[in-house]
């Protein structure tokens, strides 16, 4: 594959893009009024591994929230998996978020007092999945990220790398269309960060669509495609 071929974001005849943002803007009402994201066009094709880079305050967190349906744009349209989400009710957005998007956070956000498999199973709690199936799939997914031996452990006893792998399992288990990661290695040492990025690489190879928000070059260069956000404006980075 050549670079030029990679720039063809998707084969329009057969595949619907996972993300299709057009003219997206997010303005926080003031005073002072803040235009966190302005006129963003972003298309992510199925199977793409995208990194979004930018300095702090550049609007990359806002873009991540918009991508993850955690926030609503004030301008533009956003089509996720062929569904126009700009006009959906809060309830529908919550449901869609649970079904189509897997989140990986810098701070892991594992629930204390719940063991690893329960934490993973939580991401199917609000979907129509039976309890039995939730736990079966959670165990299988923990195996996939190499945590099959720690299913019953208390998250507090896990290392940072193990916690992030549990969080990745939680993001994966509901079979999302898009995995969104926010500084996934921010709280990890370099070897654990390496392991997490290896898992991302493996998932990408298996066909998962990933978008990783980071300020770290080591993380972003693993991605197949890189976009940069500066002062709320998105630009494609050529390599």
């Amino acid at each position, binding site marked *: 594959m050549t670079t030029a071929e990679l720039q063809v974001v998707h084969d329009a005849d057969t595949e619907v893009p996972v993300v299709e943002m057009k003219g997206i803007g997010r303005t926080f009402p003031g005073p002072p009024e803040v235009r966190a994201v302005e006129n963003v066009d972003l298309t992510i094709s199925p199977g793409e591994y995208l990194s979004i880079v930018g300095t702090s305050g550049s609007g990359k*967190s806002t873009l991540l929230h918009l991508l993850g349906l955690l926030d609503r744009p004030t301008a533009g349209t956003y089509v996720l998996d062929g569904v126009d989400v700009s006009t959906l009710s*809060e309830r529908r957005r*919550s449901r869609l978020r649970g*079904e189509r998007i897997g989140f990986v956070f810098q701070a892991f956000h594992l629930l204390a007092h719940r063991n690893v498999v329960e934490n993973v199973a939580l991401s199917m*709690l609000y979907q129509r999945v039976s*309890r039995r199936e939730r736990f079966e799939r959670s165990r299988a997914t923990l195996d996939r990220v190499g945590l099959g031996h720690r299913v019953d452990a208390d998250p507090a006893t896990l290392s940072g790398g193990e916690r992030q792998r549990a969080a990745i399992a939680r993001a994966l288990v509901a079979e999302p269309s898009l995995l969104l990661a926010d500084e996934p290695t921010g709280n990890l040492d370099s070897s654990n960060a390496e392991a997490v990025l290896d898992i991302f690489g493996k998932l990408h190879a298996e066909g998962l669509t990933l978008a990783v928000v980071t300020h770290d070059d080591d993380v972003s260069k693993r991605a197949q495609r890189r976009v940069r956000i500066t002062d709320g404006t998105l630009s494609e980075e050529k390599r």
Partner: protein
Amino acid sequence: MKRPVIRRRDRPARRLSIRDLLGEALAGVTARPSRLALTTLGTVVGIAALVSTIGLGQTASGQISERFDAASATRVVVEPGERDGPDGAVQAVQLPGDAAERVNRLAGTAAAGTFARVDVGGDRVRGVPVSDPSGSIEHDIPTVAASAGLFDAVNAMIADGRVFDDGHDERGDAVVVLGKYAAERLGISRVDTQPSIFIGERSFTVVGILDSVSARAELLDAAIMPMGTAAAVYGTGAPNAVEIRTEMGAAQLIGEQAPLAVLPNNPDLLSVDVPPPPGSLREDVSTDINAVFLALGGLALLVGGLGIATVTLLSVLERTSEIGLRRAVGATRTHVAGQFVVESVIIGFLGGLIGAAAGVLATVGVSAVRDWTPLLDYRLAIVAPLLGAMIGLVAGTYPAWRAARVEPITALRTS
């Protein structure tokens, strides 16, 4: 590159089943056991106070109604009284001889009779059965006089024979009815042989033996002769008391009317013994205490509810990142609010359950110490935990609303 086929499996209808909701709420509640214990404390104290107050109230009224039977509820006694006159002299009155007849005319009187102590001038009572040498021994048996109606008025039961009637009374016949204990002491157990007793040198025929009375138990120790006989033989004058048995519920009325009927000129000089109005005895015992304890219980419940509300609110603030995470994995605002409401309902229910158990134990314990029969409406044990759950529901509403308003972005922000 091909994207994996996402399987949409056959799924159960509900997004969040009741069981899952309960499971999540229970996990949330039990995450901090010591906090749970403290949170339930107010509800436990409140419910325990309510249950034990009601339980002890029921138990106490049970004891009272055991003693406070129909017989004592229908007994009215009129006795002559006295008062200080305006000139310093003591005014005294006597009951008229026909007091019983006068009272009998009142509607609501079931039976009435007069009673008098007879002064026999130091004469002793002797029995003279043919075969019993001990019968010649003199006994110190009190002698009293009664009108025929007295026996009915005190619910007298006859062991043997009969009681005298108005005919004996009018004629002044020398007959007596013996109380059970008097008969025992005189060695008389049957009257079909027409036994006689002597009071001093005078002989009296025993016509009957009393087995029991519901009032004026001294009759069981005495030799009872008709009023007319006592008047004729010993010059006994005015009766000492009028015993009245009223219809059920008429005691208060008769108590008011009897003095006027007996002594129209000086009704207020008579002393009347009336049973307390129905229920007033029970109220006397329990009203004051109950009011205080119910108020304390209510206060404790209020504090308990506020405690649940405060701790749940605190827990919402502490768990914002959990709320954010749940929103991120697809929970709606309703799901989040529902979980916190259910959590506080569980806390309230647990408090109610423990409180009800403590209240029942307190009731049984106090009853055991006081030698009472514990009485407790079993429905109380069911209602109490539900009341606790209700308090939890009310207390959890505001924290749940706050939880639902948590913005996932804020909650998930990396700090």
